[in-house]
């Protein structure tokens, strides 16, 4: 729970540290006094003094020795003072960072307790801004909250005390203007605070606006409303500008006052102090010391004022955070506590009594519903969309709490059930499930990872153990969880398997149930493997390459694939690939930069291809300019077929013109490089321009040989060569098996060869390994690297994997095509076993396989059809039939 005020928060979690800092501060003050007093003694006693030698603690000193003694004492004192300060600063910094971490953790934990409905009214941008940037100054302030005013105030008082000891009139002069400042500045500061508060609110509005524009960018383009959006944006930035400008004016006015009053004081010193020295009432040393002390006075005073500013700023922000992170209807924190022992299985009837769910504004999504079915039953919820089925499904999964009435499963009141029970024993599969960053596998097993089950084993006395201990200690200090991400989190038992191998089999089964196996297999084929780390798999894939090679000789497949042959020019790949005869790694031999590469240029020169490249490049440039010279920006044809980027067209136009005027030989080096870059992209079988790739095969082969033979040592890592007997780690599994290119102009080759590769893989028993590889495919941010259908299938599979006692499917199959929807429905019902299924029927879903059919209308159940009654004869009768 968050404390209602900033200082309560600080004291609750750091009072010991604050007291410690206070003690340190008190200790440091005498040091300061000493450092102030010594210069006076040095001037008055050592430099201007008499009666030498002097005795100090039984030792005798002459004047110079005495001066040195005092000076070194001053040096030591100064070192001590600033060393102390260093220590205090580090301590404060550590404290502040811990408090910041604690605060962020608490805020995040609270977000996890928000009622789902609240997320509709709060924007992601706002939450992110609050938890990252807005909380930072608040955390930073906690270290300074008590110690800084104590230290700087103490310093100030010490210096003042020192002044008063020297001469009370000087002391008075020093503080003469404090009352004015103390009256004026808080007044101004309050205005600044109000503005700061407004600024925070407005910036949030702005981030909300930005978030909305980014999310709705498609609609902005579709409606040509960019100007409207810009106007909205401009409106908010205008307001922020005005607020900030006001803040600046006030802030700088405060600064002006401080500076002005600060410089007014020396006026008193010189006039009053000078008069006193002339009169002989004050020693010269004392005046110097007071002036030196005054120099020191301005710093704590400034610090105090800026601390006050910071405090107000932090207070404002804290109050707003507390307000924002306390929406109504939050889940009880206790429900999210990690459980002791495995959660019990759900048993008994599912009973709703007057179950009601009201939204904000009082609309009753689910309206006083009553029903009862057995936990193992198959239940269909039907009705027009928006009739309350989805609300009921969410209630059954305890994603929302009932507004009234109750929902019980056996003895368990769902509203009071810990999430360890509802989140593990009930599966909710919605239609907008989210994928998290990581691989497909990570996302499938997401629902099996509730807590760290087994700590990783750290060697005793190892650095890793020491590091782990440090991490735990720090996490404790700031109230964060110390759960180890490196621990074993996967609850194999929940998936009904005994270890990683079993889990893999189970994953494949479930992928098949949701018809995702083929896609994952395809992704696996596109995946990369490291032959060093998976030598066996690499060997198997090489075996597949050999088998495929034999099969390609069959008449059905002849002429469909042009294989990589070190001694033959491949007309179905680019000139670049033909010369490299491998896959570029990194940017060194990147297709776009080959003509810039000195080694490549030298190789071409050596085999006498430079001229061919230049003439061909000129010809390609001519064709491109002719075809696309007048293309509109963003023209699709252009994007698909042009060798030249849109913004480079004018450059090439100029190059071609220069070549026409002065000939190729007269071109400058840069122009030649540009032209040379074009032929690399030519594919003989595809582009049919009658250029270098078609005419100079022998010399290109020679270039290939020379390129490989003379490759400098520092470039060996920049290309993975096509070698018939070796695995190419930079190419996909599929390319490694195919070891060639599909021939252009054969319509069926893709389908036929795809089928053949599948056949070869199955023949060698490689399918599980390839699927395993596909499971490692990263899904991207929010699953962006998968299609919408694939994402949804992963979400469904994730829900099925944990073998919940009750599976709630809330229109999860809606984004899929009707045939797949039907298949998944059958699969889920068939696979559920003793688990219950509650299915919100879509338009295409068939209610045939269900025991109960509830039809909803306006949040109420209007029809209940117990289908077991009309489907099966009563048990007794059934026995009789079996016997007959």
């Amino acid at each position, binding site marked *: 729970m968050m404390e209602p005020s900033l200082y309560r928060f600080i004291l609750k979690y750091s009072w010991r540290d604050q007291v410690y800092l206070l003690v340190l501060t008190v200790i440091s003050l005498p040091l300061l006094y000493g450092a102030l007093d010594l210069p006076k003694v040095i001037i008055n006693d050592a430099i201007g003094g008499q009666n030498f030698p002097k005795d100090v603690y039984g030792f005798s000193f002459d004047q110079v020795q005495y001066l040195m003694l005092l000076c070194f004492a001053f040096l030591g004192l100064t070192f001590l003072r600033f060393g102390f300060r260093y220590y205090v600063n580090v301590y404060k910094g550590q404290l502040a960072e811990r408090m910041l971490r604690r605060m962020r953790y608490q805020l995040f934990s609270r977000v996890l307790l928000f009622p789902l409905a609240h997320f509709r009214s709060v924007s992601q941008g706002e939450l992110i801004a609050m938890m990252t940037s807005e909380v930072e100054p608040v955390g930073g302030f906690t270290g300074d909250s008590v110690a800084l005013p104590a230290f700087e105030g103490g310093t100030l008082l010490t210096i003042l005390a020192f002044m008063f000891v020297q001469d009370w009139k000087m002391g008075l002069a020093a503080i003469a203007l404090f009352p004015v400042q103390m009256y004026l500045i808080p007044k101004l500061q309050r205005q600044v605070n109000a503005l700061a508060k407004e600024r925070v609110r407005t910036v949030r509005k702005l981030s909300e606006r930005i978030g909305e524009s980014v999310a709705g960018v498609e609609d902005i383009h579709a409606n040509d409303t960019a100007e409207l959006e810009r106007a909205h944006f401009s409106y908010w930035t205008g307001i922020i500008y005005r607020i900030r400008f006001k803040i600046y004016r006030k802030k700088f006015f405060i600064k002006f006052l401080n500076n002005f009053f600060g410089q007014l004081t020396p006026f008193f010193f010189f006039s009053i102090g000078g008069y006193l020295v002339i009169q002989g009432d004050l020693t010269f040393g004392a005046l110097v010391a007071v002036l030196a002390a005054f120099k020191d006075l301005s710093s704590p005073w400034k610090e105090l004022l800026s601390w006050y500013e910071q405090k107000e700023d932090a207070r404002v922000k804290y109050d707003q955070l507390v307000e924002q992170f306390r929406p109504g209807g939050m889940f009880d924190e206790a429900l999210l506590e990690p459980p002791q022992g495995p959660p019990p299985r759900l048993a008994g009837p599912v009973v709703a009594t007057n179950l009601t769910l009201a939204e904000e504004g009082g609309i009753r999504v689910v309206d006083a519903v009553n029903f009862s079915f057995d936990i193992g039953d198959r239940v269909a919820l039907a009705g027009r969309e928006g009739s309350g089925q989805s609300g009921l499904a969410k209630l059954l999964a305890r994603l929302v709490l009932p507004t009234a009435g109750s929902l019980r499963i056996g003895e368990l009141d769902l509203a009071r059930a810990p999430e360890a029970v509802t989140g593990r024993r009930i599966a909710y599969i919605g239609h907008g499930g989210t994928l998290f960053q990581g691989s497909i596998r990570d996302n499938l097993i997401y629902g099996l990872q509730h807590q760290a089950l087994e700590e990783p084993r750290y060697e005793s006395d190892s650095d890793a153990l020491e590091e782990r201990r440090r991490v735990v200690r720090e996490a404790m200090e700031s109230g964060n969880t110390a759960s180890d991400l490196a621990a074993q989190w996967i609850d194999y038992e929940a998936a009904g398997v005994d270890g990683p191998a079993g889990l893999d089999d189970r994953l494949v089964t479930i992928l098949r149930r949701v018809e995702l196996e083929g896609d994952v297999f395809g992704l696996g084929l596109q995946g990369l493997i490291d032959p060093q780390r998976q030598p066996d798999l690499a060997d198997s894939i090489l075996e597949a390459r050999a088998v495929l090679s034999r099969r390609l000789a069959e008449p059905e497949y002849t002429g469909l694939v042009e294989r990589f042959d070190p001694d033959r020019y491949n007309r179905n790949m680019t000139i670049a690939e033909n010369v490299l005869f491998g896959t570029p790694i990194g940017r060194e031999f990147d297709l776009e930069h080959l003509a810039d590469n000195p080694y490549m240029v030298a190789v071409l020169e050596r085999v006498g291809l430079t001229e061919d490249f230049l003439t061909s490049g000129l010809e390609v440039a001519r*064709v491109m300019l*002719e*075809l*696309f010279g*007048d293309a509109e920006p963003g023209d*699709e*044809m252009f994007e*698909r*077929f042009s060798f030249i980027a849109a913004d480079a067209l004018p450059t090439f136009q100029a190059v071609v013109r220069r070549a026409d005027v002065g000939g190729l030989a007269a071109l400058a080096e840069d122009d030649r490089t540009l032209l040379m870059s074009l032929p690399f992209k030519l594919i003989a079988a*595809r*582009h*049919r*321009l*009658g250029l270098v790739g078609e005419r100079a095969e022998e010399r290109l082969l020679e270039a290939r040989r020379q390129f490989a033979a003379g490759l400098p040592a520092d470039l060996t890592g920049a290309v993975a060569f096509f070698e018939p007997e070796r695995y190419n780690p930079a190419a996909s599994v599929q390319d490694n098996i195919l070891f060639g290119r599909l021939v*252009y*102009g*054969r*319509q*069926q080759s893709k389908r036929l060869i795809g089928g053949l590769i599948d056949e070869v893989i199955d023949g060698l028993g490689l399918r599980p390994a390839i699927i395993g590889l596909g499971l490692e495919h990263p899904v991207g941010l929010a699953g962006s690297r998968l299609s919408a259908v694939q994402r949804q299938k992963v979400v469904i599979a994730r829900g099925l994997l944990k073998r919940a006692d009750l599976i709630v499917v809330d229109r999860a199959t809606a984004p899929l095509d009707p045939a797949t929807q039907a298949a998944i429905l059958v699969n889920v019902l068939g696979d559920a076993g003793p688990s219950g299924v509650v299915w919100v029927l879509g338009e295409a879903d068939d209610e045939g396989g269900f025991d109960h059919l509830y039809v909803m209308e306006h949040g109420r159940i209007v029809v209940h059809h117990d289908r077991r009654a009309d489907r099966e004869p009563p048990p007794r009768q059934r026995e009789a039939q079996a016997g007959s």
Partner: protein
Amino acid sequence: VRYADTITILRGIPLFCRLDPTKLKRLAFACTDLTFAAGENLFLEGDPPDGAYIIEDGEVDVIVAREGREVRVGRLGHFELFGEMAIILNQKRTASIRAATPLKVLKIDADVFLRLVTETPDVALAVMRSLSEKITRLTERYEQLEVRVAEVSPMTRS
């Protein structure tokens, strides 16, 4: 030089003959050359439309499946364009096309073809003309059939 040949072929086709030279060249560059052995399918009835085809050399059979049997309903030859209807209607192929002889065709990808039709009024008009011709032919055939049906069984048309 194949690219130049393609331009000549396209210019010889009524649909494209009035296309301005740049667009014609662009189209030629975007075309794919395909070769088929006799008996190979170019596409099957029910496939999504992937492109329009122009026969450079050879002949194809137009085949539909009726009650499990394959029926040849037509044959196309030199420089004939086919496959464009499914693109315009954005529906599945209504017939299969099979190479009757060793075959060379030019394929225009569906999206390229659509852009060409929507951007160039002349081509759009030519497409309309060719579709109208097809309709006229079909209507004529339908009328002939109806006449013949009437002759065979006069009772049905009392």
